[in-house]
């Protein structure tokens, strides 16, 4: 079963009288348990793709099936509830709420999902454990290192058991070592069966995934698996 089926997807932005075609006819299938990287220069359409994949934006035309449900023209509140239950976001700038503790940040998606307090506590605890931050639960984001913040964000993304983990330059704000740690977590999550789509412009980060899709000028120009055992530079 495919998690994502995208057929002939087009996104046009209107800037005054000017129409900008950000995506012009994308066809993309992503199977369950895949770990895919989306690459491309800025302006290639990869961020637009990410927003549509994350149900933050509507495509202008074409279809987007998420777990075989067409979400391309759903209303805002429906999309919100899909973001809540089926998608987990990991952002470049972490996007944690600064006034909440790490634990409370992880709890937040479950609050919007209407999960009971006891279940929330348990699952948030489990998620924190999964990213190895059980000793940082009560810390605020500004008391954590970049790598730790990103791990909190990952815990938050996972806590509602999403069908899809979307990561937008997850290592972009991190030093190499923290970046490696994050990629290790992603890999092990993927091995546990989490489907991951990651946007990056770094070859060696993309090399951690299993498949690289490259965008240019709103179209996919290449889509190939990462060769086993070969490092980033050769891919």
């Amino acid at each position, binding site marked *: 079963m495919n998690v994502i089926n995208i057929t002939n997807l087009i996104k046009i932005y209107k800037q005054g009288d000017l129409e900008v075609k950000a995506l012009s006819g994308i066809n993309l299938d992503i199977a369950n348990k895949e770990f895919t990287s989306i690459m491309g220069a800025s302006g290639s359409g990869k961020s637009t793709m990410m*927003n549509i994949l*994350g149900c*933050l*934006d509507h495509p202008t035309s074409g279809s987007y099936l998420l777990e075989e449900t067409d979400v391309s023209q759903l209303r*805002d*509140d429906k999309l*919100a*509830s899909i*973001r*809540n*239950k089926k998608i987990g*976001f990991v*952002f470049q700038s972490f*996007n*944690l*709420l600064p*006034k909440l503790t790490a634990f409370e940040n992880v709890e*937040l*998606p479950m*609050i*919007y*999902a*209407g999960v009971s307090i006891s279940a929330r506590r348990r699952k948030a605890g489990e998620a924190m454990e999964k990213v190895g931050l059980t000793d940082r639960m009560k810390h605020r984001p500004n008391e954590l290192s970049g790598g730790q913040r990103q791990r909190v964000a990952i815990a*938050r993304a996972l806590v*509602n058991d999403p069908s899809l983990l979307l990561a937008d330059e997850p290592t972009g704000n991190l030093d190499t070592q923290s970046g490696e740690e994050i990629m290790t977590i992603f890999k092990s999550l993927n091995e546990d069966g989490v489907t991951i789509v990651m946007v990056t412009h770094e070859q060696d980060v993309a090399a951690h995934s299993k498949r690289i899709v490259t965008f240019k000028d709103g179209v996919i120009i290449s889509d190939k698996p990462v060769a086993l055992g070969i490092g980033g530079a050769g891919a």
Partner: protein
Amino acid sequence: MNILENLKSSIKNVFANKMRALLTMLGIIIGIGSVIMIMSIGAGSQAAMNEQFESMGMGRINVSVAGNNRDISQNDLMTIKDYNALAENEDIKYIAATYSASAEIKLLDKTKTKRASLTGIYGDYQQITSPTLLYGRYIIDNDNDLAAKVAVINDTTAVNVFGAADESVIGRKISLPTYRGVQKYTVVGVLSNANAAIERQYSDQFPESVIMPIVTLQRLYGTSQVDQITVLANDSNNADSVATALTNRLDILHRTTEKYYAQNTMAMMEQINSVTSMITGFISAVAGISLVVGGIGVMNIMLVTVTERTREIGIRKSIGARRRDIRRQFMIEAVILTGVGGAIGLTLGWGGGNAIGNLIGVAPVVTVQSVLLAVLISCGIGIVFGVYPAGKAAKLDPIEALRYE
């Protein structure tokens, strides 16, 4: 997200910046505070006034000839005959006739005189006014039968005329210079000054008051006129219909139409109450304008808050907050601001009411209704002025909001 959850995080957000929260609430605090203060003093003075009316005797009816002197003919004037006729009414408990005048009385310093009110009484006047008799006795029926030259005076008069208000005054004589020469009346009783509010109004004009048998006073002025008949109804709730029955009876006796006017304490009280309510309401409404101003202040700050927290809104939306979740969050924050402001205003208004009440001698009354009203209004302001900012927050585009720095 349930309400309790919302409430908890909203309280945290609102009071994260205490100074700002306080300043935002100030308009509401002042508005609710002044409304509560004014209403409590209004209700307090009303209660005090009602109490005085009640002490005067509820269901008291004063019957007199209506209109001014030009419209009144000799035929219209009331006499003791009218008193006797009205006394037959079965719905009345007490009835008295009075004739009032004023005259100069000689003071202790014989060269000086002072104007005093003279009230000639007949019937149950003592029962109706229930005065406090300090010394001696009151006017009795026999005094009228004999047209006795006796008088009951109040203690101010006693002090001014005899230099003291005590037992020794009884049996002494007060002198009234009249066109028939100086008339002397034996003092048989001394009353306390303290009396019901309405009496006090007149006693301010004439602090000296002298009560005597009506027949004695009528003779002094060469008249048989009664200028007021005062009645106490059996049931104060019937006062209106009793009053009508009495004036109708007088019209029949004098072959007139609507010539007589009955003023009853119940109606007077209602009149005064409606005036106080109107004044209180008007001042409260003026004070209430600051509530609108305060509401606009809350809206302003909420708009600033929404802008400041654009990124937070984007994050919340990206992890699944729906429009209504965001709207609710900001609505609750607005209502907390105005609600807490209202509560503080309520406390301050209550305190201010007490302070001013102490100053002007009114015990302020904070009613449950006014508290409920204050709470409802302040929360209502939060809702009204929170809708727009909350709607703005809810409508934010998540992508734009996430990009906001």
